[in-house]
Every structure is written in C-alpha cells, then in structure tokens.
C-alpha cells in the first residue's frame, strides 16, 4: 500500500515535470489560431473543470526599452576606429546576447560625419563597423551572426555641422535582422 502510494507520487511528480518542460520557450512567438472554422466542437459538459491557458507573452530582452540591449550605438573619436571605453559595455552586452541566441543576426553599420568624399567616407565607416565586429568576435560571437557594413556619410543621426553634430555621426550602429 505504502509502495503504491509512493509510485503514484512519483508519477504525479513526473507529470508536473513534463508539464514544465513542455511550456513554451521564452523567445517563442505566440502561435496565432489559424482557422477557427475547422475547430473541434465545444468540449462535453464533464470537462468544464479543465482550464484553458492564456499566454501573456513576455518581453524579449532585445525589445526592453529599459534594458542594456536598448543601447545599440558605439561612438568613435575623430579619425579613430578604436572602440572607446564608453562603447565597451554596448559591445559586451550585445555579444553576450548573441552568444546565447545563435539564431540572431546583426548588421553593424558604420557611419562618418559629412566632411570629405562620399566613397572615402564609406570606406572609413567600414573601418568603424569592422572594429566593432572584431571586438564582438573576440567575445565569442560567431562570424556567421554578424556583417560589418558602412553607410558612410549618407545616414547622419544629427544634421548640421560643428563638433557636437560630427561626434554624434561618428558611430557604428548594431541593427538586428
């Protein structure tokens, strides 16, 4: 009797465990009911004690506006392609996320201010994007997850001229695909 009882306990424990393991992954997108017309008839009266679960969803760390991943810009000094100290946390946080989420891919878009030539600036922006890419590779992000590209002077964040504007445009942006 005592044995049977413990078997039942183990069985129910296992059931709970399996229920846990079948719960959706945090990153899974909610499934939308496709065709209500073909749905089964309403359940019989004796199952009215069953609970229909509702998924409330969750915020992907990537989409949390207050999270560390919300900052996606790395800034550079004039004529420099070295990731500064203030850019290192940005690189580290995104590297950690990408190392854990191997299915995610990013574009690293390098940018320059508008002084100088269009095509030469495009090549300079590329050097900034490459600097971020190399830092992320060193932190364990796979090459296949990222692509360093350049927008040169074509997509300035700040418009006008002067050091504060130029500083804002000397940057690389991390763009999730």
């Amino acid at each position: 009797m005592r044995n049977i009882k413990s078997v039942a306990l183990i069985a129910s424990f296992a059931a709970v465990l399996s229920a846990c393991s079948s719960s959706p992954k945090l990153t899974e997108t909610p499934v939308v009911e496709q065709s209500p017309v073909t749905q089964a008839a309403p359940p019989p009266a004796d199952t009215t004690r069953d609970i229909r679960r509702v998924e409330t969803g969750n915020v992907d760390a990537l989409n949390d506006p207050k999270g560390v991943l919300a900052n996606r810009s790395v800034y550079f000094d004039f004529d420099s392609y070295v990731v500064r100290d203030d850019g290192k946390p940005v690189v580290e946080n995104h590297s950690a996320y990408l190392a854990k989420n191997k299915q995610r891919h990013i574009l690293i878009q390098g940018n320059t201010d508008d002084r100088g030539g269009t095509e030469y600036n495009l090549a300079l922006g590329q050097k900034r994007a490459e600097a971020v890419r190399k830092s992320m590779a060193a932190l364990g992000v796979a090459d296949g997850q990222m692509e360093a590209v350049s927008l040169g002077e074509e997509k300035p964040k700040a418009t006008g001229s002067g050091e504060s504007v130029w500083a804002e445009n000397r940057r690389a942006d991390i763009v999730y695909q």
Partner: protein
Amino acid sequence: MKKLHTLLFSASLMMGAAAHAQLRVEIAGVGSNQIPVAVAGFADESVAPEQVSAIIRADLERSGVFKVIDARQTISDSASPDLGAFKSAGADALVVGSVQRMPDGRLQIRYKLHDTVKKTQLSQLSDAVSARNTRLEGHRIADDIYEKLTGVRGIFATRIAYVKENRAGRDYQLVVADADGEGEQVAAHGKEPIISPAWSPDGTKVAYVSFEMRKPVIYVQNLVTGQRTVVANEKGSNSAPSWSPDGTRLALALSKTGNTQIYVVNADGSGLRRVSNSNGIDTEPQFSADGQSIYFTSDRSGGPQVYKMSAGGGQATRVTFNGSYNISPRVSSDGKTLAWISQRDGGYSLYAMDLASGQEQRLADSASEPSFSPNGKYIMYATKGGGRVALAVVSVDGRVKQRLSTQAGNIREPSWGPFMK
C-alpha cells in the same frame, strides 16, 4: 552700343530658356578668345514646340567658347545671305536653318553653317525628328557647330545623371537629364540613399550604389528597359563602380575581406577577382581611357592619395604628392589630365593635373565628385554653398564656370554620360 544690345539680347534669351529649366544655369568668367558666331532665326521654326535657334544660341553661349551675335532676322538654309555684311558686323560664322512639318507629323530640321571670312559653307545637317526631339536636334546642331569651329567634338547632346535627395523627407532619386539640365527623367526612386552613378560607355546603362538593403549594394540599370541587376552584393560594403572603356567589366570597391579593396567583375556580375592588395583602404577605382590602368584612392601611405596600377593588379605607383588628402581621381578621355579633389587649407577643392608634366591647377573650391565631359573639355562637380549641394561645371582651363542650381533639395553625385551615336 550695338555690342551692348547684343549682350542684353542674348542674356534675356538665356533667361527665357532658363525659365523652363529644372536646373538653372548661371555662367561666369567667360573666356577671352571667343569665336564670334551669328545665329539667325530658323525659317518657320514656330511649327516646332521649341525655338531651335534659341536652343543653339544657349548651348553656344554656355560653352564659353563663342560670342553669340544675334542676326536679328530669320534666314532659311535655302537662302543666299550676304556673308560680307555679317563679317562686317563682327561674325566669323553664320548659322541659318529651317523647320518644316512633314505629312507624318515629324519635323524636318535643316541647318547650314557659313564661314563669313572665306565665304564658304562649312557644314550642313538635315534630320527628320519627332516633335519631342526638337531640343535634342538643336543640341546636335550646336554640337556640329562646335566641332566645325573648334575641331573638338561637342557635348550639348550628351546627358548627365545625378542624385536628387531630400533627407528629411527620405526621398532619393537617380535623375537623368540633358547636359544643360533640361528634360529631367527619374531613373530610380526610393527611401534609401543612392550614390556613385556611373554611365556605361554606350550610354544605355547606369551603375550605382543603393542602400535599400540597409547596406551598399551595386546595381546596373538598363535605362531603356528599366531592367536592373545586382552586380555585387558580397558580405560587407559594395561600392564605387566604374566601367571599363569597352563596357564589358566594372571596377568596384568591396570590403568582403574586412578592409575595402578593389575588384574587377564582368558587367553581369560574374568573374569577380581582386586586383588591389593593401592593408588599408583602396577605393574609387577609375579605368584609364585605354583600359590598361586603374587610378584609385588609397591610404596606404597614411592619408588618402591617388595611385595608379595595371588593370590586372600588381605594383601601384603614387600620383598625387601635394597635400595630405587627395581623393576621387578621374582621368580625361585623352588620358592626359587627372582631375581630383584635394583638401588644402581646410577646404576641399577641385584640381586638375597635366599627367605628363605633373603641373597642378586649382579649378574650383567647395567641390566634390568630379566628372569629365566626354570631350574632356569640362568637369562637372557637386558644390556646397548656402547649406545646399548643387552642381557646377568648369572648363579644364578654369576660365568658364557654370552653376546648375535648383529650387529644392540637394543635387549631388554627378556623372557625365558618353557621346551618343
């Protein structure tokens, strides 16, 4: 007094022509050794949608090479004008002509060019064109006059491509227009930047860089069919296309290895191969007119400088030495002149160098993205002024300057198209 009247009259003609233009042309610093040419009204030219003689006058004036004298009368190509009288009035040549509507609706446009000194006929043309090609035929006649009187092929019937952008409105257009800025047609339009347009040598296609895939990718667009192909979409950035003189290949700048280097690819995107080899930036490749060499920008010595190498790759030799920032090399069709942008004293200026002597000349300030006219006599470039970017043209001797301005937005990245058959 007569001279003043002529000047005023031709000036008002210019303004009349400009009123219709999307791009307004302003001329400054006209050359001193101008050839005086009298242009008569063409007989019955009112049957055409535009005055052919006015188009010719405007073209000849704009070139800076001619002093246009208004004949103040209509003279048909079939008439026998008193050439001695025009010689006495100061004209070395006289342009006459006629327009006739044909039964099929086309226009028969005839012209003759007379030498008033030798009292001989120098040239004539007779073409049947559709009414909408009146302007083009005017440009062709002006080209013929230019060639017969200077010995150099004219560029009035050529076309230009440039980018019109409104960044705030996220509106970008690749535009094709006549060399005088008239007849704008949009070839590509979108919400992402377009840069570096380059005409194919036969004038049917334009290669350019579009950011519509959130990175620079090189396209070739057939202007006639509207068909567009991706020529390079490698990992990283794809940019700076330029055509080989025979139109079979393109030189490009790709960052697929991490640093921007120069590659050559077949015009259909096949057969990609790397031709430059440095640890720094190599970009802005330009084939020489004979296709044997590639001029390019490289920062291998520190700052950017212009270099030259064989089109197949290999050892590069440095071409620019003055100043620490020399970019955007372009070579004239005769291979004798290099135009480029140099930063000196803080500003970016357009320079030209005689490649044989190494002699440099500063042609314009606040300049970027130079492009030679196909006859090598003019350079178009983008210029910043009053917060806006506009296009300007300068003669290679620096004497004649024109500014092509527009009402709204920035106009940049000009590319001067080839001679058309």
